[in-house]
């Protein structure tokens, strides 16, 4: 049973010249899979990830997440799906600098509104503890080191127990020690909690340890 499926996804860039970035992308991702998307710069892997994340709606073809067709949903409906089912980890952590780490982790859950604020706080502490940065919880996000910030970002991606976690070079900015930590966390999430991870990466070591590598060349998937 695939958690995510694409059928013949095509995408064009119109500026500055007409250019086809993605050509007939069709693939499936199983639940609990740790999948890496690899390829040279400009091959379209980030573009594909943004389409999979539902943020980019300008494409043709079909995208199914959790067996639901995404194409004809409104922006607001897609936002609600992202909030509930998808977690993001970016290369640059993109934390809200004015908020504490704890608050950063709590924000998606407060938005979802499934639990009370007290429960969300407890859950956020739990995620931070799992990631080993519980002691940094009340510091402003901007005061942490890069590795710590990335772990806060991961905790934030996890707070709503999403079906899929998407990473755009999640370890791109980290040293090998922190890269290992992040990879191990992903591994554990996939194996123990059955969460699916799709990560774009340039890191061969990281990719080799994943369940499956999808390699892209010139907007196509290399089988």
């Amino acid at each position, binding site marked *: 049973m695939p958690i995510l499926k694409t059928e013949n996804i095509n995408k064009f860039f119109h500026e500055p010249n007409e250019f086809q970035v993605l050509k007939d992308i069709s693939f499936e991702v199983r639940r609990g899979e740790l999948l890496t998307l690899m390829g040279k710069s400009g091959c379209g892997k980030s573009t594909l990830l943004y389409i999979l994340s539902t*943020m980019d709606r300008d494409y043709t073809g079909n995208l199914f997440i959790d067996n639901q067709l995404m194409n004809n949903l409104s*922006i607001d409906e897609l936002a*609600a799906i992202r*909030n509930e089912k998808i977690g993001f980890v970016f290369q640059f952590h993109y934390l809200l600098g004015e908020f504490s780490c704890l608050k950063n982790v709590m924000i998606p859950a407060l938005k979802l509104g499934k639990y009370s604020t007290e429960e969300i706080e407890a859950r956020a502490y739990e995620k931070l503890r799992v990631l080993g940065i519980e002691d940094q919880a009340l510091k402003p996000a901007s005061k942490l080191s890069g590795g710590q910030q990335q772990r806060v970002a991961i905790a934030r991606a996890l707070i709503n127990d999403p079906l899929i976690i998407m990473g755009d070079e999640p370890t791109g900015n980290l040293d090998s020690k922190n890269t290992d930590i992040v990879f191990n966390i992903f591994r554990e999430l996939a194996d123990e909690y059955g969460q699916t991870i799709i990560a774009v990466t340039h890191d061969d070591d990281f990719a080799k340890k994943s369940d499956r590598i999808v390699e892209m060349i010139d907007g196509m998937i290399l089988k």
Partner: protein
Amino acid sequence: MNINTDIAKTYILVDKRQTAVAAIGVLLGMAVYIFMNSLMLALDRSSTAVIFKNNAHIRVYKDDKISKELVSDSKTKYLITNPKVAPKSNTIINPNLVTETILKNKNVTVVTPQVNSSVFYNNGKSQISGMAVGVKPAEANAMYDINSSIVDGNFESLASNPNGIVIGVGISSKMNLAVGNNINITSAKGVNRTFKVIAIFRSNVKALDETKSYINLASAQQLQKEGPLYITDISVNIKNPDEAEAIGEEITQLTGYKAQSWQEANNSIVTGNKMRRIVSGLISYLILLVAGFGIYNILNMTVNQKINDIAILKAMGFKGKDVIRIFVTQALTIGIIGVIGGVILAAILINTLKHIHVGGDIGYFPIEYDFTVFIRGIIFGLIITFFAGYFPARKAARVDPVDIFRR
């Protein structure tokens, strides 16, 4: 607390200086708005108060009419080719019936008959021409509040003193008359009579203080060589002076006599007030609008600074309307702080100025609290801050996170 509000609160508190600058802008705009409008209102009221000291809300009198042609059919020849104004008599026929008719109108509060006669005041060799107004003292006082403008003597004793006269302060000083002195009056009809000064009034209108006097209705009728049914004017006061024109129209329809509203009689003052109101209203609204632009600018800057935050919030599932709510909340918070401060500042300003004596005819600085001015200012201030926040917020809501992440 809602997460949108929470984020808005954090943004407000992070840059306190910016928030304060925007709020002070609103505060000053608000204070000036309320202050100017309160001032205008008080000036209006004090100028109409001066008018109502000497004018009834509606004056009913017999107007000279131009002769009508006897045949109105345009095909036939006119029987009168050169119509002239033909004054018959300036009295109101059957004044008691007219008074009763007017009193039936629910909006009317006071109706009093009046006889105006042009006279000469004589004292020794000095002579002043002027107007002696014959009134029923109690009713006239109810209408013009003459008691409050009396500087010497007692107006009410006019009723019990058929030979009494109440003169303006200008006549008193020109003729060196004090309460208790006698004054000789010659009417246009040639009647000569001596009155005793029982009170002196100051209306703060120099032209009136130097010419006007009040006498009993009966004395005025005698000066005109007429009987008790001779009435030239009927003065009417109504509940709401602003409705004078409409009610005057009704009275004309009912009685057939000309009913002149105070607005018509004091046209230049009324239009002057109106112009002043328009100009000051416009300026005060514009000042508030400028304060709105302050908020707009600052929020626009915030949106640009926080564009990464907005992108990540949208990636995490915040909808466009959540983003709008965050920034509109921020704008409204600044607006509410500014409005509260502005109301307080305006109240302090008004309270201080109220107690400053500027002298002259005006006395204390003409400014007063008016509930509706405050309410109007608050509502308008909040509407402006809402829109000043809404436009930058809409821009933020349109941010495409993919564009930001691709940079």
